[in-house]
């Protein structure tokens, strides 16, 4: 099998970079992007200088201000960042149709495997792209090249905020081995903590464990740890970006909460929004995940799956509440929650030959369709299930 050539382009501190493009007087000032007027504002993005002072994404603004008193605060302008992201994608799309982009975060993956006859070797494509983006957009992305998304992402992390990194095919595990475990994407705080309990600090140490050994403490996640620690990642670059790979909704509580009914109500509202989007896009989701952010900064993610996939609010809600029960294992208040639906499939338009749904399911489908009609006419949120209140 041919080695893949995956380029990861990353404009670091994307929101700040875009704001500085709009107003060059901001170039030498430490910046924090956050909704200042919000009751409990969280940092959306920050400049390298503010990062150096200890400011982090998702941190409470009042705390961030204490860390970096000289910083200027800017209101987030997601629409502007989305436009900049589209402009970035427009620069790279000529090289390959396989471009996967983040939402508005300055990240994108490109699979340039097999384009060498047209555009030359992959490092040359990456270098030219950076030059092109610098010239056309005034942004200066970090670039990395590797045989998969996981390794190229880690390579970018190694050189940010400025630089480039090429990891040769076949060198993935050697490249990762000396790095700290925190550099491995996708590990939760709990997993990192557990690995530290086992006295594991480097990715190479993790890679020495067998599948069976990893399955004992990590169960199904052991498989991911086994492959990731060896630099193996078979997930393809998904054209169109995470937008086609998953849909998600986020909610920040005004005050941290430990009320289960409140969180359940919020999730039900999010399910409505998310389910409606799925139905509009003609998709069904096979997995629903809930990510909770606790008030102490820790996070927890759990999922529930439905093999055939669904776009029905009732079933989606059931999956979301199951995921919530699995995720909420600590007696700590919740700051925010994210509802994620992924493993998306196109909804089959063909009717089943025999009616397999129960009368209750048929009734629910009719109800969801009626709610969609109301929302389409009078706006989203005009009608919702009683459990969402």
């Amino acid at each position, binding site marked *: 099998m*041919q*080695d893949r050539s995956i380029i990861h382009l990353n404009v670091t501190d994307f929101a700040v970079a875009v704001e500085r493009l709009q107003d060059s007087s901001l170039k030498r000032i430490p910046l924090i992007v956050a909704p200042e007027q919000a009751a409990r504002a969280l940092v959306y993005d920050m400049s390298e200088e503010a990062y150096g002072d200890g400011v982090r994404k998702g941190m409470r603004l009042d705390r961030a201000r204490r860390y970096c008193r000289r910083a200027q605060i800017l209101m987030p302008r997601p629409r502007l960042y989305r436009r900049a992201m589209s402009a970035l994608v427009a620069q790279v799309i000529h090289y390959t149709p396989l471009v996967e982009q983040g939402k508005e975060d300055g990240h994108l993956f490109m699979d340039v495997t*097999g384009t*060498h*006859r*047209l*555009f*030359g*070797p992959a*490092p*040359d494509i*990456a*270098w*030219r792209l950076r030059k092109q983006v610098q010239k056309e957009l005034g942004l200066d992305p970090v670039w990395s090249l590797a045989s998969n998304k996981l390794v190229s992402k880690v390579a970018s992390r190694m050189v940010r905020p*400025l*630089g*480039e*990194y*090429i990891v*040769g*095919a*076949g*060198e993935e595990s*050697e*490249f990762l081995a*000396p790095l700290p475990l925190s550099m491995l994407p996708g590990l939760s705080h709990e997993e990192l903590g557990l690995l530290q309990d086992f006295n594991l600090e480097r990715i190479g140490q993790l890679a020495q464990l067998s599948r069976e050994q990893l399955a004992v403490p990590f169960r199904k996640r052991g498989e991911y740890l086994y492959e990731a620690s060896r630099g193996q990642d078979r997930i393809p670059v998904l054209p169109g970006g995470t937008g086609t790979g998953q849909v998600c909704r986020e909610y920040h509580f005004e005050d941290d909460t430990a009320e289960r009914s409140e969180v359940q109500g919020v999730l039900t509202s999010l399910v409505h929004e998310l389910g409606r989007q799925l139905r509009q896009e003609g998709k069904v989701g096979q997995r629903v995940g809930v990510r909770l952010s606790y008030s102490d900064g820790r996070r927890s993610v759990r999922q529930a799956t439905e093999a055939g996939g669904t776009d029905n609010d009732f079933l989606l809600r059931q999956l979301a509440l199951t995921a919530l029960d699995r995720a909420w294992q600590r007696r700590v208040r919740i700051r925010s929650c994210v509802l994620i639906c992924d493993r998306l499939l196109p909804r089959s338009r063909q009717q089943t030959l025999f009616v397999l749904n129960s009368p209750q399911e048929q009734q629910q489908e009719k109800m969801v369709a009626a709610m969609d009609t109301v929302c389409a006419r009078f706006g989203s949120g005009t009608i919702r299930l009683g459990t969402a209140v």
Partner: protein
Amino acid sequence: MLNVPEQKRRVMEVQDDLCPVLIGTSGYSYTEWVDSGFYPQGTRAPEMLSLYASSFPIVELNYTWYQMIRAEAISRMIAKAPDSFLFAAKLTRTLTHERDRDWRQELKLYREGIKPLQQQLAAILIQLPPDFDWTRNNRCYLAHLLDGLQGFPLAVEFRHISWARDSVFAELEQRRVTLVTVDAPSLPGLFPCLDIVTNPSLFFVRFHGRNHQGWQSGNMQKKFDYSYSAEELEEWNNRYLSSLRSKATQGVIFFNNHVRAQAPRDAALLREILHQE
């Protein structure tokens, strides 16, 4: 002379009355060389260097131009080649073409990164961009660069014609720095092809191909898409190479026309021509 066990560079080295010459290509890791038949079908990137080393005794590393050379990556690469195999390494672009970062820091990183290669290093290639002309600032910068890389075998490739002057050659000679001889399309403003040897220990030749149209296209696949004929190489040998070989004690030649594996084909052809002499 190059710091390599002499007996190990046998078959692939051209040696007659004139000085010995090592012939190789600029870069070795090209997927299209599999499609073009230089590497066997199914060859993966990690296997390429050892296969390449069975055909050529030396390679010019291109990727070190794209990214800062790193000791750990270099060590892994060296391990795949025989001890007798030699490398020429391009200086990173942040020291030649894009000098907007702190070049002293970059130079420090480069010196650190190239350390594992020292025993098998034929030369560091300082390829300067076409807009790097003979100005006071550029002369000072180049002098600082050569000072900073002291202790390494160095070769300088100019692309701007303004450097073709005796004072430049004299300075290189005094520093024992090799002036790179280039074969490229004869375009106005380009540094000419010269048989001047500024370092008797090493001459350094690069064949870029003669694709006039492709040269300024900005696309590598067009720029280096050229196949030399046996007549062209024979003529080049008579006109330049014999002269270079009579003035130095060792020479290295690289073919940069990598498109469709024309570089290894032409390198083998030139070797054959020299063997037949």
